[in-house]
């Protein structure tokens, strides 16, 4: 399992803060000083019992020392525990569980994700029966015709004396209705067959697009130059398995290609190194909207400034449209997010860029700088309220040019796994109120 390479540095930092000598700590946890030295310089992986022992000696939560993949694992473990209504999991020992049984923890996390995605498709299917007008009309047609045939047929079968003209009429009606029933039931079956084929893939279109982007580390080399043939590029992407995902990918790529055209890589990186990380100044210099600068920053090639920044885009209902993860900033996979994110503040002040330093309460309590802006997505029309998207860039704290305001805003991920007390944004009780 991959572990954040910073764990060792954090141990070293904590130890030095306590004024504890390397040899002393090593002795207390029963390893050699040279081995501890390797750990502290991130040259040996650390986890499990050793990490717990070190955390105990230097008096911190083990979670303060670990991060990265494990933190994500633990966040999902907590979600899973929160979802379990009948069994009370030892949420206060999730760290220990993930540390000691990483394989089992991953199995549980994968199962939890699978359940969430299956639940969503069940919901989608239920919705379809209740709301799909085509299906409702089809079923209505079948049932009405069946009702008519049944009623007419039983009149013919049960009525002792029936006038020839009535009998002929009913025969004709049954004949007509049975033809209609054959047609409508065939239509219904072919509709259901078609729909079933569409449902085979359980990942949402958005997830497929994100998986495709993750394959490319969010930098789409093939869209950077010339006149890319989007249809061909999309057809070649193995992750895009549904029409819906290909459509989403196309929308994303069109936007990406436009950004790449307006802000060619070399030009953008030159401006970035001259001006520094200042999205509004960059937007002015490059004559592009601020939100385009934010997307472009998050699409920089691996190893350059911006490549490890996170990005979240939502619409004005608050639904997430796009999410590029940044290590340490937890975003729930499904369901509702924390209303305190600057992303949502931006929606209440359209066109005004917002800068806010945040601390995601809970585990590692890392600091992030968020830069968010809400912008209309449709051209202005007379007496029509515009629709907005909000875009938020998330960076590790301290990378922006401008000095941030002193205040750090505590935010969460989602209520159920957020320990923050007395939060005016709270929607439901946390499962973690007893810890931290």
């Amino acid at each position: 399992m991959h572990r954040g390479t910073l764990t060792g540095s954090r141990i070293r930092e904590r130890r030095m803060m306590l004024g504890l000598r390397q040899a002393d700590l090593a002795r207390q946890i029963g390893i050699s000083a040279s081995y501890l030295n390797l750990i502290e310089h991130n040259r040996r992986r650390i986890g499990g019992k050793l990490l717990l022992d070190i955390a105990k000696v230097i008096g911190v939560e083990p979670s303060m020392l670990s991060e990265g993949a494990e933190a994500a694992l633990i966040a999902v473990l907590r979600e899973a525990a929160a979802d379990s209504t009948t069994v009370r999991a030892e949420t206060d020992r999730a760290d220990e569980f993930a540390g000691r049984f990483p394989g089992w923890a991953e199995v549980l996390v994968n199962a939890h994700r699978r359940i969430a995605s299956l639940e969503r498709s069940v919901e989608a299917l239920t919705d379809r029966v209740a709301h799909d007008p085509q299906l409702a009309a089809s079923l209505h047609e079948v049932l009405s015709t069946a009702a008519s045939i049944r009623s007419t047929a039983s009149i013919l079968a049960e009525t002792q004396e029936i006038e020839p003209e009535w009998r002929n009429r009913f025969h004709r009606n049954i004949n007509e209705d049975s033809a209609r029933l054959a047609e409508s039931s065939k239509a219904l079956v072919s509709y259901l067959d078609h729909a079933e084929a569409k449902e085979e893939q359980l990942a949402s279109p958005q997830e497929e697009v994100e998986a495709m982007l993750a394959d490319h580390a969010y930098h789409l080399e093939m869209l950077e130059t010339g006149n890319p043939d989007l249809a061909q590029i999309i057809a070649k992407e193995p992750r895009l398995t549904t029409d819906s995902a290909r459509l989403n990918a196309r929308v994303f790529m069109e936007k990406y290609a436009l950004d790449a055209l307006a802000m060619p890589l070399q030009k953008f990186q030159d401006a970035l190194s001259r001006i520094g990380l200042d999205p509004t100044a960059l937007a002015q210099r490059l004559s592009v909207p601020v939100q385009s600068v934010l997307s472009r920053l998050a699409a920089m090639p691996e190893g350059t400034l911006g490549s490890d920044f996170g990005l979240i885009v939502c619409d004005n209902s608050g639904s997430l449209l796009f999410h590029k993860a940044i290590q340490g900033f937890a975003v729930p996979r499904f369901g509702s997010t924390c209303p305190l994110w600057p992303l949502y503040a931006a929606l209440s002040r359209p066109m005004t860029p917002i800068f806010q330093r945040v601390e995601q309460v809970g585990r590692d309590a890392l600091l992030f700088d968020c830069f968010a802006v809400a912008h209309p997505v449709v051209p202005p029309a007379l007496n029509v309220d515009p629709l907005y998207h909000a875009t938020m860039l998330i960076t590790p704290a301290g990378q922006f040019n401008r000095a941030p305001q002193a205040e750090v805003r505590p935010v969460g991920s989602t209520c159920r796994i957020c320990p923050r007390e007395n939060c005016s944004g709270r929607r439901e009780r946390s499962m973690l109120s007893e810890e931290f």
Partner: protein
Amino acid sequence: MGRHVLLIEDEPNISEAIRFLLSRDGWQVDTHSNGHDAVETVHSSCPDLVILDVMLPGKSGFEILTELRANPQTKTLPVLMLTARGQSRDREMAEKAGASRFMTKPFSNAEVLDAVRELVRP
């Protein structure tokens, strides 16, 4: 009480079958096939019982029933509702709107006869 039924149903073949069935049972049957002016037709023909389909062109059976129940003249008129969907939601909506009975398609002729006989006792 009389034996006058108004059948409001847009499927002509169902209409015909029920009409035949009830006529044979000694009822006077009038039919009507759309939602637009169904309420007016009820008021002008003064039936002893209304058989009302839910899915009608122009106005739904629920709307028609609600209007009938709002009028003192038809407040207690027996109404048998027919629907092809038969979901619990439809049943709830029918009860809320004030239906006397609720029947889902496809139904048997015996069920229809039992229902109308029970709703209009001589």
